[in-house]
């Protein structure tokens, strides 16, 4: 009995000496968005929006911005701590932004630190900012009317229609995978609002300076994956446009001779409804068929141009190389890299208008 008592006593003594570092909810600064920009003399400037709890029963969250200029990313965090009243934690980061200039130098080092940190999630978004990342940070910190992080919400909302999935995970997926290149959303600030400008194109981790316009994001998504939302406006004639509401879009890649002289044909099938048809008759079946044909042509032309642009810049955001690999035994990755620019790629679009709204 004495022994047992001793044991209990001993364990209590031990327990007092083994506390772990806590992160009490209101005693930490939760970083929500982090932005990186280049600064003079090879330095980088990091800035972050943190949410600050305000006491009281019905209080909302305040937001503050901290910035620091140093050489490396981890130093940024350290520097910020010097002006922060409480410790800064990254466990609730929802977006990481990179200024255009920095992105053109390559962003992998600034991504890797987040991939390593077990406290950081995997579903946070990465984005390139046209201009400076700091601008978005400043706008973000003023958006207090509704809770939540605007940057994250905007990207999240649009990734159903005009953007491919661009979370940390997909960036790492496309960056680390062979024969594919990542893309990230390109954001800009317009009249104190955060806006998506388009899709920034990357070669490995370096922004090549070109982007797909926001409107054409839909087309890129058509090529990239199967999805079920989004609207695209196709020009039929001079002054007549048709807005196609995507019901379901499916894409198929047909690949021939992966290790020799490959040929790729992309077949996309869009089932859609008509949302808006300015100056267009839609009464007869033949009229609808004509419109389908016309819009197919327009889309194909645009997509051909897009794919050509990818090839010219030697980037592969569609993961064509990977698709070829998955259908080729003993795939020769070197050979593919050599021939990629010249591979004939044919895009075939099939539009089917199945709904014309509740009026005709």
């Amino acid at each position, binding site marked *: 009995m004495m022994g*047992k008592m001793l044991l209990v006593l001993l364990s209590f003594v031990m327990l007092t000496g083994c506390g*772990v570092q*806590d992160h009490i909810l*209101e005693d930490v600064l939760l970083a929500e968005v982090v932005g990186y920009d280049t600064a003079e003399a090879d330095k980088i400037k990091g800035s972050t929006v943190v949410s600050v*709890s305000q006491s*009281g029963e019905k*209080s909302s969250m305040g937001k503050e911005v901290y910035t620091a200029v140093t050489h490396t990313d981890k130093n940024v965090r350290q520097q910020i701590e010097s002006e922060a009243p409480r410790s800064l934690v990254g466990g609730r980061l929802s977006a990481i932004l990179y200024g255009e200039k920095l992105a053109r130098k390559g962003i992998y080092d600034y991504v890797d630190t987040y991939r390593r940190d077990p406290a950081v999630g995997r579903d946070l978004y990465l984005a390139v900012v046209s201009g400076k990342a700091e601008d978005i940070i400043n706008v973000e910190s003023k958006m207090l009317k509704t809770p939540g992080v605007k940057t994250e919400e905007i990207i999240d909302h649009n990734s159903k229609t005009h953007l491919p999935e661009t979370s940390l995970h997909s960036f790492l997926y496309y960056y680390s995978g062979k024969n594919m290149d990542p893309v990230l959303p390109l954001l800009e600030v317009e009249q104190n609002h955060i806006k998506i400008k388009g899709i920034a194109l990357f070669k490995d981790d370096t922004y090549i300076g070109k982007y797909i316009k926001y409107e054409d994001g839909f087309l890129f998504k058509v090529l990239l994956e199967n999805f079920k939302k989004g609207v695209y406006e196709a020009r039929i004639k001079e002054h007549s446009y048709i807005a196609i509401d995507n019901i379901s879009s499916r894409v198929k890649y047909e690949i021939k001779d992966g290790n020799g002289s490959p040929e790729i044909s992309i077949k996309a099938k869009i089932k859609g409804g008509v949302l808006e048809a300015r100056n267009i008759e839609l009464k007869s079946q033949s009229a609808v068929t004509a419109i389908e044909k016309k819009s197919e042509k327009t889309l194909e032309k645009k997509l051909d141009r897009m794919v050509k642009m990818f090839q010219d810049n030697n980037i592969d955001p569609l993961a064509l190389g990977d698709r070829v690999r998955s259908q080729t035994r003993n795939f020769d990755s070197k050979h593919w890299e050599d021939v990629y620019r010249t591979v004939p790629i044919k895009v075939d679009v099939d539009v089917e208008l199945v709904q014309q709204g509740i009026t005709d």
Partner: protein
Amino acid sequence: MKFFKSEKKVPPLQHDTSIPYAEVPAKDFEELFKKFKASADFLSFQYPSEAAFTVSYFKSIVGPDQVHQEILPVLTQQHPSTLEEVKNGIPVENIIISNDLKVIQDAVMTGSVIIQINPDNSHCLLVPCASSEKRQISIPETEFSVVGPKEAFVESIETNINLIRKRLPVPELQMKEIKVGRISQTRIAVLYIDGIVDQENVQTVIQRISDIDYDAIVDISFIAQMIADNQNSVFPQFIDTERPDRAASGLSEGKVVIIVDGSPQILTGPTTITNFFTAFDDYFVTWHIASVFRLIRVFAVLFSIMSTAIYVAVTTYHYQSIPADLLPTLIASRGAVPFPPILEALVLEGTIELLREAGARLPTKVGQTIGIVGGIVIGTAAVQAGFVSNVLLMLTALAALASFTTPIYQISNTIRIIRFPFLLSAQLYGLLGVAICAAFFVCHLLKLTSLGRPYLEPIFPLRVKDLKDSFIRLPFSSQTQRPEILRTEYSSRMQPKPKEDSRDIDE
């Protein structure tokens, strides 16, 4: 490493002769009478005349009507000359003539009248005419149910056995009686249905009860603690109930019932943990409803134990795991609180326990109402004063409410208590601490037995058949077998109906 040993060396029992009670009878008759006469309620008089008979008894436990109408008239009218004649004259059963001091003492103390012929006072005639005060049968209070029988056990062992026999009128319902308690000489009855019950269980119970050595057994809860397999466990190992219907149904399943005189509760065993989530009204409603209620109860108990611990773990260590939409609310409510989450939780849990304890001490059910109202007032004030956060207040109140859903009072006490280790371990290691604490409890529950039967059955050892009446209750038509855990001698409850071929539509 000596203190790890669990086999204790039991010292040989020494008979303690310093206890002057029942064990050691008086030396002679005079001494015994002297002892009796020391009490003011002991009556001893000569009747009808100086030289005839001496009649003595404790007037507090003897029915005066019986003495006046059945005993005294015999002495005056029939003029008996020997005790034999008196015995034949009095129309009462179980009259004994004895000169054994032990027998005399026991008889007198349980309400017998002593009649002696003067002057020879060595032999005594003992006429049992005890009168005992008992309460009327009332409706069950701790196990109240809206539908179903409204009888509850009372303090008298005869009445209680009567309530059970009434429901199971078969001679197989048998009873063993044991007297326990050096001072209290409490009557304990062990009931079982012969032919169904596993005799091993009966033997275990009787053995354990006979082994009890204690001065006064005042209530059945003494017995429940003394015969428990593991007396250091916070988990009750017998179900105590005040419902005769529950007792009868337990008996018919093959359980053993223990009744203690003077206690309005009875014990049934062996029992498993799932029995504690079984309210007897579950059998009064259809099986779907009963199953849902039982699942709700299980969930409520888990919630009650874990919720504040998880709150402490998450707010102290795992801010990452809070859903994004909940985060602002949580931060805002925590913002004003000056204490770390653990202290906040301890304060609030403490308050609730205080209210509960106070409510239990207040005389009526109104007391509980006042307690709850007090809780709301104190809670609101505490939140407004910034002492605790309102999210936690809500969680704690819900947890308290959830712990009331268990039908058996004993286990709800257990749930009250085991929250605190969870709370402390959450503070220590966050969610990992909660998991470690849970693992310790799982391990303890696995080791626990009730009358030697595994406590966690039917989960472990897994007995799929017994799951039919555990967390869910299947319809009566599938309850064809008695629970396997009870190892009944005759396990089938009814003839299962032959399966009918399902008829086609409109046939």
